[in-house]
């Protein structure tokens, strides 16, 4: 058995999480602000009112700061694939290669080329072409996100590929299946719409500060009106796609859904825990109560998971130890099947080495019957298949609470700004300053739930993270972790300072 160092796996995961979370601080603002710029400039193009041009140019400066600081932060993730996750990288290279290449060649170049026209071309190209460029930046940004999210969705729900037992690679069979996979579609809609919400919150926050200071009231109110409508519509899409994400999780990652809800024993019908404190002593398989002071909404989890009020929703114990009544196979059985799959693969390899084509074909056929259980061969105990329940439960519930709070805030801002009464409600403007950290908290928690909920898998049910990782010493990964921590902290401080400085300066015309 090849030894793996749990500390090295932990540091490699921490390093990837650190850089991915840092990268995701820029991406949502790029996605959402680019759309808002396109709306602002469309108003300018349609009305000819120079105030809309001033508004567009101001937000374009903040967009440029975010774009410039954030650009290339995704490269750090790619470095880690080749070094820390070389086995994984090799195995998924054929799957990830196509979406990432399309992302770079098509979406990124579309975005970057038109970004130059948008930022530098105000006086050099016609207003119509400038507006076209701004829309292309918005579309290019979302297309970039699409390909990355398709690749990530494949890790949650691997489809459209076959395993090559000679090269140990997953090979693409059907790129259409990857792109149209329910996980990919939902993932894309949820991630982009939540990014739109975050950007709208950013606009509300900056404008609240201006109104509190009595500066640029016309710019602030007009920006708030557009951002509130955009944020409100995006919030509805977040809720709808979030509902679909839970439905997908019930079908493809039921353990993730059970952990998100802290559901240990399956229920029919199953209620949704709106609020509750998890019992820290609770373990899978025991009889201890799961919650202290829970508040349940009956039927809602059944509705969320299966779109049926009276349906059964499996809990962690059902999925872990099996539930024959519901036709659920336990993890111990899956582990046994996984080891069979691995043994057939080993025999196939030996037969190939000895030139025994018949034995190779027989073992390969047997392997194909149970290859979807392969990853379970690498678990030592069934309990390893359970992700960290408290992180998922609290992360999911805080995210959902914020996700329902934001549309109410957009409605309030919209109503008060429309009636010209926003400046009188200073408590709301002060609260508005918190909207950026709250928006980022919801957005980051979404990714924490998505990625932590997939654990212990790098590729759901097929490859656990410790097998995906390179054989490296923990100290090697640890040292690069701290290099990244220092570098990313510096970049973050640089962005904050430049961004805050630009907000303080305000729109161009008024600084004279």
């Amino acid at each position: 058995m090849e030894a793996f160092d749990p500390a090295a796996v932990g540091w490699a995961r921490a390093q990837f999480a650190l850089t991915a979370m840092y990268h995701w601080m820029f991406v949502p603002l790029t996605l959402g602000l680019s759309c808002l710029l396109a709306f602002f400039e469309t108003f300018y193009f349609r009305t000819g009112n120079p105030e809309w041009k001033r508004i567009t140019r101001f937000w374009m400066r903040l967009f440029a700061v975010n774009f410039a600081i954030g650009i290339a932060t995704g490269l750090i993730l790619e470095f880690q694939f080749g070094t820390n996750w070389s086995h994984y990288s090799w195995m998924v290279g054929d799957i990830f290669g196509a979406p990432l290449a399309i992302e770079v060649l098509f979406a990124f170049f579309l975005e970057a080329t038109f970004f130059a026209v948008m930022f530098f071309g105000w006086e050099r190209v016609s207003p119509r072409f400038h507006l076209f460029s701004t829309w292309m930046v918005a579309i290019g940004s979302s297309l970039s996100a699409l390909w990355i999210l398709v690749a990530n969705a494949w890790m949650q729900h691997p489809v459209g590929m076959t395993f090559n037992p000679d090269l140990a690679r997953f090979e693409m069979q059907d790129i259409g299946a990857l792109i149209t996979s329910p996980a990919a579609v939902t993932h894309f809609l949820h991630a982009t719409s939540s990014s739109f919400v975050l950007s709208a919150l950013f606009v509300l926050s900056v404008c609240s500060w201006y109104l509190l200071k009595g500066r640029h009231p016309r710019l602030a109110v007009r920006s708030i009106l557009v951002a509130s409508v955009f944020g409100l519509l995006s919030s509805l899409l977040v809720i709808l796609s979030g509902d679909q994400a839970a439905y997908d999780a019930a079908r493809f990652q039921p353990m993730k859904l059970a952990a998100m809800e802290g559901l240990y024993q399956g229920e029919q019908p199953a209620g949704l825990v709106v609020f509750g404190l998890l019992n820290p002593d609770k373990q899978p398989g025991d009889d201890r109560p799961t919650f202290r002071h829970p508040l349940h909404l009956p039927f809602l989890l059944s509705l969320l998971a299966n779109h049926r009020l009276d349906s059964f929703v499996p809990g962690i114990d059902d999925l872990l130890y099996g539930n024959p009544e519901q036709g659920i196979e336990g993890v111990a059985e899956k582990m046994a099947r996984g080891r069979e799959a691995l043994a057939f693969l080993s025999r196939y390899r030996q037969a190939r080495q000895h030139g025994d084509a018949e034995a190779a074909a027989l073992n390969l056929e047997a392997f194909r019957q149970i290859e979807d259980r392969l990853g379970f061969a690498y678990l030592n105990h069934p309990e390893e298949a359970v992700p960290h329940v408290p992180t998922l439960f609290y992360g999911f519930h805080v995210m959902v609470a914020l996700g329902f709070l934001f549309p109410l805030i957009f409605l309030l801002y919209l109503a008060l700004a429309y009636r010209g009464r926003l400046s009188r409600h200073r408590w709301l403007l002060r609260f508005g300053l918190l909207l950026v950290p709250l928006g980022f908290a919801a957005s980051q928690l979404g990714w924490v739930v998505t990625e932590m909920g997939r654990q212990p898998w790098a590729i759901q049910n097929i490859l656990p993270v410790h097998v995906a990782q390179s054989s490296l010493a923990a100290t090697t990964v640890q040292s690069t972790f701290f290099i990244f921590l220092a570098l990313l902290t510096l970049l973050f401080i640089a962005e904050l300072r430049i961004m805050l400085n630009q907000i303080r300066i305000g729109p161009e015309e008024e600084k004279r």
Partner: protein
Amino acid sequence: MTLGKTLWTVILIKIIVLLGVLKLFFFPDLLKTRFDNDSDRGAFVLRHLMESQPPARSQP
């Protein structure tokens, strides 16, 4: 310094640090540096898959 110059400076420093220092000295592509061809890389990863299984296993 104007905003444009500041941003270009940040971008250039970042690209130099990422590609000229980190990628070059800290993040080699392990399989590419250790092996000359895809066949050897595949054999290595396949061996890793075979040997990574837990010790207490039942054979079919």
